[in-house]
């Protein structure tokens, strides 16, 4: 083997800070189509929602524009809360990637091949058949979840974590997507009590992509109901920010699933990897919880850890076999050169 043709080992460790789409070969052709024709596909009349783990939700508009909100990653520095994820976020192609705030479980934009990024959006973007509006507010700092309070969060992150004087990590923008006559709100990790003025600006919501999990890491079941029912009058509610086996580290951050919250209300356990709605479908519902559970829209690697193991053990001769690659150098005459 010609060692000079191997990549220089030092280049394996080049940190790419910030934008890395140059290296991913991202193309904006679908955005050009949306700009030119108002959409990418024929109008399906339906909005599609799919789940990618943690609180990463993808909204596909009736005319095919794909908007992904809050892809996750492990923060680049282990001091920032440690390892939270066992899997890397899948390298998927979408048209727009949006992040609600600068925390590792929400700002893994570098994993996503998207020609358009909206980081911590405030204001309104009209693109294709979607209108995306950001409502800037603050991150939750006192979740009131009976397991831990803001003081432990402050200890884990080593930072002052509530206003005034907090840094960008403890801010949050809620993301409202209006498309096909449907209004979808992604909560991010927003505090429970944004000003009433902001709720008035947001108005009534059809689909509430919430941060409700049974442990209430961000939004407790009680707060989820208060916000979703009383303030947003949500028709469909999706839990988020909950534990998915194979994605979340079971010991990090103490989050569990959201099955109990789901059962407490009219609910549907979604069996597929996505679900589509028309405006008429949603008008029949009132705070109906749709729970993806572990049905994320990608293949998660799950380690076989149940006992007894029921995996076939293959013979070493069969797999990987005894490949004596060195024998190509075997002397033709005798045992040694």
């Amino acid at each position, binding site marked *: *083997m*010609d060692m000079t*043709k191997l*990549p*220089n080992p030092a*280049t*394996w460790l*080049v*940190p*790419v*800070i*910030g*934008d*890395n*789409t*140059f*290296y*991913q*070969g*991202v193309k*904006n052709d679908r*955005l*050009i189509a*949306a*700009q030119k024709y108002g959409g990418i596909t024929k109008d399906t009349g339906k909005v599609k929602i799919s789940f990618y783990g943690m609180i990463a939700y993808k909204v596909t508009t009736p005319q095919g524009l794909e908007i992904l909100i809050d892809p996750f990653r492990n923060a*680049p520095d282990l001091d920032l809360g440690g390892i939270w994820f066992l899997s*890397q976020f*899948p*390298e998927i192609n979408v048209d727009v990637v949006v992040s609600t705030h*600068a*925390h590792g479980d929400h*700002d893994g*934009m*570098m*994993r996503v091949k998207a*020609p*358009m*990024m*909206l*980081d*911590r*959006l*405030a*204001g*309104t*973007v*009209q*693109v*294709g058949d979607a209108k995306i509006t*950001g*409502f*800037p507010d603050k991150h939750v700092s006192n979740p009131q979840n009976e397991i831990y309070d803001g003081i432990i969060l402050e200890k884990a992150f080593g930072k002052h974590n509530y*206003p005034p004087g*907090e*840094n*960008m*990590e403890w*801010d949050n*923008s809620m993301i409202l997507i209006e498309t096909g006559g449907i209004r979808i709100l992604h909560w991010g990790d927003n505090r429970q009590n944004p000003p009433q*003025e902001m709720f008035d600006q947001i108005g009534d919501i059809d689909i509430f992509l919430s941060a409700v999990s049974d442990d209430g890491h961000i939004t407790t079941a009680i707060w989820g109901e208060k916000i979703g029912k009383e303030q947003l009058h949500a028709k469909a509610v999706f839990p988020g920010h909950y534990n998915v086996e194979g994605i979340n580290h079971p010991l990090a951050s103490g989050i569990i699933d959201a099955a109990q919250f789901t059962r407490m209300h009219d609910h549907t356990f979604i069996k597929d990897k996505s679900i589509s709605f028309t405006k008429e479908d949603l008008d029949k519902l009132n705070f109906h919880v749709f729970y993806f559970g572990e049905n994320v829209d990608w293949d998660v690697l799950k380690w076989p850890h149940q006992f007894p193991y029921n995996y076939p053990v293959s013979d070493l001769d069969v797999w990987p076999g005894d490949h004596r690659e060195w024998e190509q150098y075997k002397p033709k005459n005798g045992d040694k050169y």
Partner: protein
Amino acid sequence: MEKTSKHPSPVMGSTKVTHRQPKHIDPMPRLVQVGDVAYAQNKNNTRIIAAHYYGGLRENTGEVTISYYGMSAIKITTPKGLELFFDPWKNPCDPSWGGIWYKMRMPMTHCDIGFVTHSHFDHNAYEMLDAGMLFRGLTGEYSFADFKVTGLADKHIVETQSPVYTKEVLDTLYPFPNVDKEDVDNHIYLIETGGLRIVHWGDNRQNPPQDIWDKLTDIDVVILPVTDDGRMLTPEWADKIAAKMNAKIIIPTHYFIDGINIEGAGWGKTAENFAKSHDNTILDTHTISLNKAKVKDYNNHVMYFGNNVNFEFVGIDLPENGKVADIPEVKSVWEQYK
């Protein structure tokens, strides 16, 4: 070494799992993705929330200020005080991806909203912005507070038609294995604020389609990457583009600045001749204030920032010193353990 036609993702931890193809040797360097670093910022979104509720951050001054930061980096401050920053620059993370272009870093700079026209390192260093929000590749109409930005998705310049920067020269300078150089993205930004229509061209190709030209009519200020040697836009193309937009003022960018840019890193000329061959103002400052009344009598007037940028360069004179200093004694701190 076995050759494969398909490159795996150059990114470490790729879901394409190259280790399951043991006979395949990856010809690409692998990169450690650090990604976004906004969590390390010290500021917060207080100014953004204020602009959301009050539509601005101060009383209307009636003027838009435009400030130059080298390369294509421009900060536009709206009459109500929102700071929009376009195209911050940096050296590439690894010199093998384009070489070292700059003697210094663009300093960490405050703004409210950072915009990136395309993902080349001379335009995409948004980690150097202390920003409330960041947009890359914005397409469509964005409205907030007292401004509107329209992002027009198009493509990067491919053939400069410069006598110096031919395709062969550029292929030698930038031998990227994973990039289709005929098809690189770029987004033109049209900024509307304080009654002015300002265009940041990024490195867009010279001939976008008609539907984009239709949006770029009656432009007050156009920010163009034009240099005398045509590193991006040649003077001829800059003239054509400015004339097509009916631009009142042209601001050249993306030119050589002594103190920031390194000579011979694939370029070398300023835009001085371009400026002087037009009706021009050679500015002696890094920031200008404009409004509708001030710009109305100009037609293709070049305002040239030259070497004036809105930060201090790190520059040292090296005069010969007559007196040579003594070699200092080192403090013997170790003696405390004696």
